């Protein structure tokens, strides 16, 4: 399941959907990304998440397909929110179920690393004074994160 949506999501509901009915899951890994206070003292109130609607779903599906080919997982779900978000809000969810924990961990990390590199989302920090809104810069760490999958 892959969703790009404005609405919030509910981890508990996702977890219920993620658990297989046939007892073949030994491991479930979930990742949730939150709106963090990057710039204390700049009156940051949240983020606006712009995206490229025709491409986002397609891009996440591609990443998901690649991950499923590479790792032995039963299920892989991705949700990414867009639009206006406040500090502390949930942005992204990745949920993986697998017979083995290594595969579950690696798959979730793989998806996040490629999402951060390829999925067409752009964050703009919203501030109390709106004329001072600032686009978030990519960070070097995210570029380097991909090396482990080569």
């Amino acid at each position, binding site marked *: 399941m892959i969703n790009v949506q404005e609405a919030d999501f509910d981890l508990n509901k996702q977890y219920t959907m993620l658990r297989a009915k046939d007892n073949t899951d030994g491991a479930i890994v979930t990742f949730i990304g939150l709106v963090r206070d990057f710039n204390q003292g700049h009156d940051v109130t949240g983020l606006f998440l*712009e995206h*490229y609607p*025709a491409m986002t779903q397609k891009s996440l599906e591609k990443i998901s397909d690649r991950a499923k080919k590479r790792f032995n997982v039963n299920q892989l779900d991705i949700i990414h929110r867009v639009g206006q978000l406040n500090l502390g809000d949930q942005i992204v969810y990745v949920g993986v179920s697998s017979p083995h924990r290594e595969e579950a961990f690696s798959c979730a990390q793989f998806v*996040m690393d490629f999402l951060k*590199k390829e999925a067409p989302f*752009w964050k703009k920090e919203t501030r109390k004074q709106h004329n001072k809104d600032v686009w978030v810069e990519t960070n070097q760490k995210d570029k380097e994160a991909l090396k482990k999958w080569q």
Partner: protein
Amino acid sequence: MIKVLFFGRLRELLNCSEIQIDDFELGSVANLRVLLAKKGPKWAEFIEGNNALVAVNQDMVDESSQIKTGDEVAFFPPVTGG
């Protein structure tokens, strides 16, 4: 005819989210960049900065990729989702 889209910081820089180019026949992404650079100093800047990623029909491509009539081309800054 091709459609060209801009996103994020780049959309703001150019003050433009979408243009249509009627006279672009066959050519590479690099050719299209040269054409766009002629539209003014801000347009030239984003080309020279060379910091804009490009997708053709919603797939990331490189500079040598060919564009054909009817394609949707998008330029955008490095992504920052997640």
